[in-house]
């Protein structure tokens, strides 16, 4: 498949052929989940010939699953591609920061999305905090520590607001983790194009700032017409994700919830519901 320098070299070569009009020469595998393969490629543009850019498009391919009945497989692939695209289109129309849908084919099982520049919040926060640790012992430590904390708090507020804008239109994400939040640099159209994606391990440039817009990605488990309960569970999942992947950032969660609480009219009610959801902890005791 792709050249050895691509991020794909870390992954096993995909066994699934790419659907037309895409081909392996123009697509770079970014990540492989249980459901879908994510490639970076070009779509309706000529940038594939340019060496500076790897493409403007994130191609999400849901290959058919040979273990299930062909009729069921078609039905599920179609329903999931359409559901994801519909949610994204609606979010876009309502001004929620998500990638645009460029095109799709439910028969072939793909959807082409706008490529989002930047890094995942997961990587951004990790590197930012690591860098902070490296500075320990230097002069002006207290001031810098305060500065770093303020930067993290500011990021958490922006995350809360982004989730709030999503919930304001009664959409829930369904899988809010820090890997599904992108940090898009302030002027990403110009400037350096950075390799992106949660799995991209080539940390060419260390993260020194957490500036940028929060963009929500991967709406494979999203749902519309969400109730307060669903929104509270969405927040609970995000809290837990922070707790397990960024324990040091956990103390700033109140900033995330504060940003969320001010973001739309019904937010306070959802925050109260969140307290109930937290109390439940593990959701059910097993039945014999």
């Amino acid at each position, binding site marked *: 498949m792709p050249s050895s320098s691509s991020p794909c070299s870390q992954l096993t070569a995909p066994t699934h052929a790419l659907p037309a009009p895409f081909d392996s020469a123009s697509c770079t595998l970014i990540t492989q989940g*249980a459901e879908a393969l994510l490639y970076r490629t070009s779509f309706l543009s000529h940038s594939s010939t340019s060496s500076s850019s790897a493409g403007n498009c994130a191609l999400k391919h849901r290959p058919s*699953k040979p273990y299930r*009945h062909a009729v*069921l497989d078609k*039905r599920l692939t179609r329903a999931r591609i359409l559901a994801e695209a519909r949610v994204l289109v609606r979010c876009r129309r309502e001004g929620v920061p998500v990638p645009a849908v460029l095109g799709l084919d439910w028969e072939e099982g793909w959807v082409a999305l706008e490529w989002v520049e930047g890094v995942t919040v997961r990587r951004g926060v990790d590197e930012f905090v690591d860098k902070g640790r490296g500075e320990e012992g230097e002069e002006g430590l207290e001031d810098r520590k305060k500065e770093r904390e303020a930067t993290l708090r500011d990021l958490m507020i922006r995350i809360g607001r982004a989730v709030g804008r999503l919930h304001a239109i009664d959409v829930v994400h369904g899988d809010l983790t820090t890997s599904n939040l992108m940090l898009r640099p302030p002027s990403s159209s110009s400037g350096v194009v950075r390799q992106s994606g949660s799995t991209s391990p080539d940390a060419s440039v260390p993260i020194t700032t957490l500036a940028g817009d929060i963009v929500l990605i991967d709406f494979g*488990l999203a749902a519309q017409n969400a109730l307060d309960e669903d929104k509270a569970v969405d927040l609970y999942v995000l809290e837990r994700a922070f707790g397990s992947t960024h324990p040091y950032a956990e103390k700033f969660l109140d900033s995330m919830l504060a940003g969320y609480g001010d973001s739309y009219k019904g937010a306070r009610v959802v925050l109260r519901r969140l307290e109930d959801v937290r109390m439940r902890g593990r959701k059910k*005791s*097993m039945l*014999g």
Partner: protein
Amino acid sequence: MPIAIGLEGSANKLGVGIIHQPTPFTPSVNNPTPPPSPPSKSSHASPPARILANLRHTYVSPPGSGFLPKDTAQHHRRWVVRLVKQAMKQAGVTVEDVDCICFTKGPGMGAPLQSVAVAARMLSLLWDKELVGVNHCVGHIEMGREITGAQNPVVLYVSGGNTQIIAYSAQRYRIFGEALDIAIGNCLDRFARTLRISNDPAPGYNIEQLAKRGRHLLDLPYAVKGMDVSFSGILASVDVLAGQLGSLRADSGDVVTPEDLCFSLQETVFAMLVEITERAMAHVGAAQVLIVGGVGCNERLQHMMAVMAAERGGSVFATDERFCIDNGIMIAHAGLLAWRMGFRTELEGSTCTQRFRTDEVLINWRD
């Protein structure tokens, strides 16, 4: 050479098993003080366990009905002494050879569990042997690992009462996903009641045979949420379709048969199970799957799982009905593993419980 007898009766099967785990094993570093036998079994270093006896007697209810707790408990009480005697005879062991009495503490149906716990207590007092209360789910997992040799698989545990996706981490069997309402086996059993299919040898087995002759796939709800699944809505839908049998036609115009309904139900619910298993494998980075529990006998499920695993470059491990379906040997095996680490259940604490999560048990015999 420790020998344990295991008593299982959490549902409609009464099982008595006698197991022998050979002694030479590598001592564990983490657990220095387990009395009285040598410590630990390092998962792959020890020689395989020997099954001395594995007997089962099943309470079968008439077609159209399920097994009720009261009748099932009565069945277990009626058969337990006979089965223990027979197992001891078949194993060729004497009372002196037995080191501990293992019994299912839960989860399961209350009344049947209690009947078997009383029997275990009686044996403990009569023979002056120590008791070990065992988690039924852990019994399935450990027996599956022992029989198949799977090292560190993602476990799909599917039975009449349980539907769980499990992976081992830090001395616990952690539940990654589960059924949010009824268990997969319960869904199949109840549909068998709707169609008034025989419960002998098992309703799920008879559905599987009918499904082999099904030709049309009908639309049923598909309820996967992350790594969790839900079956009650599917059961309600297929029940409605069953009520329309005779007048119902497939897209092709053919009359829909009960076989088509069994086929559609199996294809839908098994696709859900394989999907969440694949998600769990991707999540923890595992290549092996182990299927345990009564529904794990289903060859269509095993086949679908094998296709999925092959696509991921992995493999599937499954056992046959002797070990998939509830049995006493798995309780003896898991109980003896715990006993060798020093775990005991006092007579006063030898209760049972309908709710007993898989992740509550400390798995200190694994690294």
